[in-house]
């Protein structure tokens, strides 16, 4: 007995919708069976709160008098990209400040704007007859400018590798501080709470799916960069390594610092923690089978990040229950594990989204187009024009 999204939205509007978060559905399905769960539960909220480097914002500043056509722009001494029209720019999370090195950068500019703080805007231009101004320096706030949208080319990676370090020196990577001689293992996934691990074949998540992002509502804008649906999968549909990704868009003016935070990985660089929540409609029993996935059913590989090559060696497969237990045995040695993705915050977002839906503040959308299932990931090699 399949449900449609329209039926579910009707229930959201009349207050009768039944929602569980992606952790609660596990026990519910265990106790009540798949058939009854598919009848009883309408929506399952999934979420994640982890570091997502491919994050940034489009900002539209408004025109000065006399007007300027910005060629180069800086926000609090962090370069932004202004090669689009006269006063539109894109600030990327990972861009470093020209004066503060890794202590400040694009993600911090975004966090400061969302927090309502004034940000210094400086721009230079080559000047034209209609845009005579050649430089400008002023202060802006999120409210004082025009549109500001978060636009993230690659977010909510469907599974990611766990990381370790076989060398005899501590290394500082995007998977954090990795202690020598397999001193620790880090990972970054919400596991059984994660959006794309609960809908592994993207049956309900697609372009146009409405999502919770950064504290406000946004949408899936496109498949994310490096989207790799062809990754090997287990029988439960979950990929055994990094697979699908989403490009997300949301109104920055509706976000809050509780759910979107700048971060610095010491010795590596700057990134942005993005809180994303995606509600999944329980359309049929097939969906329940996907939604009841547990941490112990989802596997990833432990990759040795001390090898400075594109393909790094694997030290074996491991599931998220083992990773979340705090330590595992590898090569006869007890190794401590820790996540960079906050499960506590992901649960908070899943529960908040649950409230929004139950209270009728969040209607679900059918996607406008499905995520592609046939994209492959290319590599960048050094080639001449002829070799290409």
């Amino acid at each position, binding site marked *: 007995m399949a449900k449609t999204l329209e039926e579910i939205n009707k229930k959201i509007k009349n207050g009768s919708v039944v929602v569980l978060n992606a952790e609660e559905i596990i026990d519910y399905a265990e106790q009540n069976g798949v058939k009854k769960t598919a009848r009883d539960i309408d929506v399952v909220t999934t979420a994640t709160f982890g570091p997502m480097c491919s994050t940034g914002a489009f900002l539209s500043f408004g025109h000065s008098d006399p007007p300027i056509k910005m060629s180069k722009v800086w926000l609090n001494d962090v370069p932004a990209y202004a090669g689009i029209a006269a006063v539109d720019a894109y600030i990327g999370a990972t861009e470093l400040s020209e004066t503060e090195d890794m202590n400040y950068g694009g993600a911090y500019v975004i966090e400061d704007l969302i927090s309502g703080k004034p940000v210094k805007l400086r721009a230079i231009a080559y000047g034209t007859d209609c845009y005579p101004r050649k430089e400008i320096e002023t202060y802006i706030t999120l409210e004082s400018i025009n549109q500001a949208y978060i636009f993230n080319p690659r977010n909510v990676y469907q599974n990611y590798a766990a990381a370790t370090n076989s060398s005899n020196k501590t290394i500082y990577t995007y998977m954090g501080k990795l202690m020598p001689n397999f001193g620790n293992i880090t990972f970054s996934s919400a596991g059984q709470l994660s959006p794309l691990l609960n809908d592994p074949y993207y049956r309900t998540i697609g372009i146009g799916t409405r999502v919770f992002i950064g504290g406000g509502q946004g949408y899936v804008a496109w498949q994310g960069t490096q989207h790799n649906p062809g990754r090997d999968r287990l029988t439960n549909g979950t990929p055994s390594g990094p697979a699908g990704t989403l490009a997300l868009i949301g109104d920055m003016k509706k976000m809050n610092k509780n759910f979107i935070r700048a*971060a610095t990985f010491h010795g590596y660089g700057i990134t942005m923690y993005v809180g994303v929540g995606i509600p999944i409609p329980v359309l049929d029993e097939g969906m329940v089978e996907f939604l009841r996935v547990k941490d112990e059913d989802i596997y990833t590989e432990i990759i040795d990040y001390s090898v400075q090559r594109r393909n790094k060696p694997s030290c074996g497969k491991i599931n998220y229950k083992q990773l979340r237990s705090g330590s595992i045995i590898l090569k006869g040695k007890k190794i401590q594990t820790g996540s960079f993705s*906050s499960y506590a915050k992901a649960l908070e977002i899943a529960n908040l989204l649950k409230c929004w839906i139950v209270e009728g503040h969040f209607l679900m959308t059918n996607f406008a187009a499905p995520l592609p299932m046939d994209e492959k990931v290319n590599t960048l090699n050094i080639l001449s024009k002829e070799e290409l």
Partner: protein
Amino acid sequence: MVTRRLILNFPEKIVTKPITYRLVKDYDLQFNILRAEITADVTGKILIEIMGSKNKIEEGIKFLEGEGVSIQEASRDIIVDKEQCLDCGACTSICITQALILDKNNYRLIFDKDKCILCGFCQNCCPVNAIKLNV
């Protein structure tokens, strides 16, 4: 019975002189050396937990100071800023005494100061700089 955590700093001229054992012999104190190192400028640093009567500890400390050892309290030196903390758990993979762990029920960070040996490995592993050391 009182327990105190102290950092003992031994200047160069006494770094090779056996002093610590006198706390046991003369002042009847138990101690646990949590961490010890000789730094590049040839001074010694010991993070020590001393147990005994309040008076004997005071006398032991006076003795150490008389020998040229300088002493700091160790208990207030690590701060975990819970306002900044994301409860991600990155620091729990680094903490060798498991003073930093995630609560099994609500997945929030717990910092058990009594287990901390001030090794400092956690200092630069927090992505939002919520862990600060004063050593």
